[in-house]
């Protein structure tokens, strides 16, 4: 038998040295906009952040992977699903219609045989709604220490304050209360396309002579809609993370 040539041995070393060393810790995975988001910029793409690259950039993707429906006029919103760095994006062919409400879905990927398999985590699949209308809507009522606060579905507006500018009135256990000026709310670790895409405003219970510990529900009345919220004992970050489908990066994909 011949001696093992040097060149293949060097190549083995090269192959091994190039493999596995580029591993990076997976980042957070989430969808954006979160479920219930309003005031979404019409030209912004929808994002499914996967935590780590799952396919070569430019890979052809099943166009049914992300679908968007205009709930006001009905029908599909035409657009393109693109694989980016650690994310899938839905770019609408034309900007989303301003003032409309939309539903969007992330479907489990249908893999072509003999092709890259998109490892989309199961907890990122599902449906959500968003709106390009500027109105603020309550996402939840939270018990935060001695306060009862409402998480609003949009960022703090540059002018005016929430919810006064939205024509909403708030009742805590049947008594009208005011809401203090909202402050930005978000989830650490998420970098959405639009910074501060939610906000938090606490109820002025003291002014109304109400003990926060007794409040079970909050009623938000708007010109066209009424929301009856059950007070939850959790943080705004937790609520928003749930609506972003925020997950860790190491679970099995679909």
């Amino acid at each position, binding site marked *: *038998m*011949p001696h*093992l*040539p040097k060149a*293949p041995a060097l*190549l*083995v070393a*090269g*192959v*091994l040295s*190039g*493999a*596995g060393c580029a*591993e990076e810790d997976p980042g957070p995975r989430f969808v954006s906009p979160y479920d219930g988001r309003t005031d979404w910029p019409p030209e912004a793409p929808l994002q499914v952040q996967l935590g780590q690259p*799952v*396919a*070569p950039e430019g*890979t*052809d*993707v*099943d*166009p049914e992977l992300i679908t968007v429906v205009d709930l006001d006029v009905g029908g599909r919103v035409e657009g393109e699903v693109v694989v980016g760095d650690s994310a899938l994006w839905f770019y609408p062919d034309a900007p989303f219609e301003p003032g409309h409400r939309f539903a969007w879905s992330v479907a489990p990927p249908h*893999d*072509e*045989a*003999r*092709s*890259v*398999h*998109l*490892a989309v985590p199961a907890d990122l699949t599902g449906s959500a709604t968003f709106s390009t209308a500027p109105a603020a809507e309550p996402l939840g009522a939270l018990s935060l220490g001695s306060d009862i606060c409402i998480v609003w579905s949009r960022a703090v507006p540059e002018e005016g304050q929430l919810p006064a500018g939205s024509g909403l009135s708030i009742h805590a256990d049947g008594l009208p209360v005011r809401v203090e000026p909202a402050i930005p709310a978000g989830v650490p670790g998420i970098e959405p396309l639009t910074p501060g895409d939610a906000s938090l405003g606490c109820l002025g219970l003291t002014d109304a002579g109400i003990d926060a510990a007794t409040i079970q529900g909050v009623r938000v009345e708007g010109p066209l809609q009424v929301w009856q919220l059950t007070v939850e004992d959790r943080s705004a970050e937790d609520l928003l993370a749930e609506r972003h489908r925020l997950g860790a990066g190491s679970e099995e*994909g679909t």
Partner: protein
Amino acid sequence: MISLAWIAMAFGQDAPWEESLPGEAVPTPTADQDRDRWGIQGSAIETIGGSTGVGAGIASVIGPDGGTTAYTARADVVWDRYKVSVGVPVALYRSPDGPRGGLGNLTASGSWLAPGPDPEWQVGAEVTLRTGQAYTWVNEAHQLWPSNGIDLVYLRRVGDGDLRGAVRTGVGIHAPSGWDPYPDVYARLNIAGLLEQRVADSVGLLGEASFTWWDVSPIDATAMFWAEPSEHLRVRSGFTFPVASWAGWQPARVPAGTRESTFRLELVARH
């Protein structure tokens, strides 16, 4: 004087010490000239022996899970007891946006052959070099999907005459682009065996079975026939059946069942 005369005659001949016979000279055969030009030629098993030549082939996966076709060009140069082979495939495969094409991986191998016109064994190294972006596969994991790697290969001929066979053992390491279902790096162990039967002067049959791990198609069975329309030309055709894939034993997420087979057609010209 006699010595001087002999020296003068000697300068007048090429080899004065050899006896010259009347008639046409017969050239002394060399190893290359005497070699079986086809050697033993498998599908997963590289040709053992053989002579210098070129070839082109199509391997097309047909069936519900098919849609990938690899077009391969290959050249072998054999000199004395050395053989160098180079091959490069081009793939046509389907994607959600329709058919897509791409260059596969360049494979280059260097082998050392046992002495004799029909080498008993052949040992060598095969290097896979990433040259394209064809994220697909036929029956071998490292042929199309972008990857680098090296395999050490030992081939042995078994038997002689019209019915003969060969075995292949190989071990290697590969570093593909680690997109699902491929790992970032994998070791590759391959064992294969074939039997070929010459049934007429220019027609023969080939049966081959191979086991490879890690691979996208771990167990394959191949049946082919060949015909030689001329002394230097051989046409081969047949099917590879991915037995393990049919049973659902493959790393890709595909359902079990006879959902694919690979049709092969090759044209080989040898010096």
